[in-house]
């Protein structure tokens, strides 16, 4: 079992195998995303009742919370890929770590913007410099910094190495985001959903959140493979495997 897994891992390290693997997986991932979003959005907009305090404005959380979770999960995945890239120098891991940054930045942006739109009527302000909001904004800047550093090098592998170190430096921000609402007083409220222990959301309101969260996971996987596939193709355009691939396409 372990050997097989190791073999699969090594196989995915090979660009042509990875490219074909991504090619077959991407349509499936998008289909699953579509199903999840359809069910999740329907429930979020038509099925669940309004909140006793916030009325219908709380429906924003079905976008805001999955985006926030994915913004942080993306960072952790990127950090694991960065470790693989730095220790084992596997090129596909490097590329995936690097292309994860713009995707994470996108989810962070969604989180910040929807949060602002929610805050405006509920809190009475669209922005506050409290620890939660500020650390989330810093996450966006870290993502942009990683993208910029990677782009600044002509040598992709050198750029990926430097940017991977920055990824690992930025990891410290993730627990800060998560615990900011416990460590300090913030305008942002505490966690509603707790994996360990009771959640303070009525069970009738939970299903769309689960659907949307799962859909966003598939969406992330599809986006990651899409971008990684592009990056491989662009970097390897002079290599034999791309020539063969294009040759097949011409015929």
């Amino acid at each position, binding site marked *: 079992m372990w050997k097989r897994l190791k073999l699969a891992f090594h196989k995915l390290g090979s660009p042509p195998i990875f490219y074909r693997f991504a090619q077959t997986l991407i349509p499936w991932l998008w289909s699953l995303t579509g199903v999840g979003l359809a069910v999740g*959005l329907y429930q979020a907009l038509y099925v669940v009742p309004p909140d006793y305090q916030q*009325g*219908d404005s709380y429906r*924003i959380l079905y*976008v*805001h919370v999955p985006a926030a979770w994915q913004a942080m999960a993306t960072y952790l995945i990127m950090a694991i890929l960065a470790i693989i890239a730095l220790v084992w120098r596997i090129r596909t891991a490097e590329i995936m770590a690097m292309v994860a940054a713009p995707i994470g930045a996108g989810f962070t942006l969604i989180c910040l913007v929807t949060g602002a739109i*929610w805050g405006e009527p509920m809190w009475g302000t669209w922005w506050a410099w409290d620890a939660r909001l500020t650390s989330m904004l810093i996450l966006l800047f870290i993502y942009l910094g990683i993208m910029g550093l990677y782009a600044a090098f002509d040598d992709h592998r050198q750029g990926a190495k430097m940017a991977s170190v920055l990824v690992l430096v930025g990891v410290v921000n993730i627990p800060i985001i998560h615990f900011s609402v416990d460590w300090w007083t913030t305008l942002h409220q505490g966690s509603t959903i707790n994996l360990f222990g009771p959640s303070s959301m009525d069970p009738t309101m939970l299903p769309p959140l689960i659907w949307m969260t799962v859909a966003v996971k598939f969406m992330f996987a599809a986006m990651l493979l899409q971008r990684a596939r*592009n990056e491989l*193709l662009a970097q390897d355009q002079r290599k034999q495997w791309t020539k063969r691939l294009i*040759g097949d396409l011409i015929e």
Partner: protein
Amino acid sequence: MIPEFSYANYVWSSYAIAMAVVLWQALGPMFKHRRLLWQLREDQLLEADQGNTAKSNHTREHA
């Protein structure tokens, strides 16, 4: 059809913005992939063409 919400503007605008970012993130790479394949195909055809002409010149010289 469209549900009547309190804070409707806020709800719809946040969903719309999220959808716009997602579409941008999904479609951008899709188009880029197409462009890349097309461009690589052009390069390869051009190269093959040049290779052929070079080869034919070569044979002509020998003839």
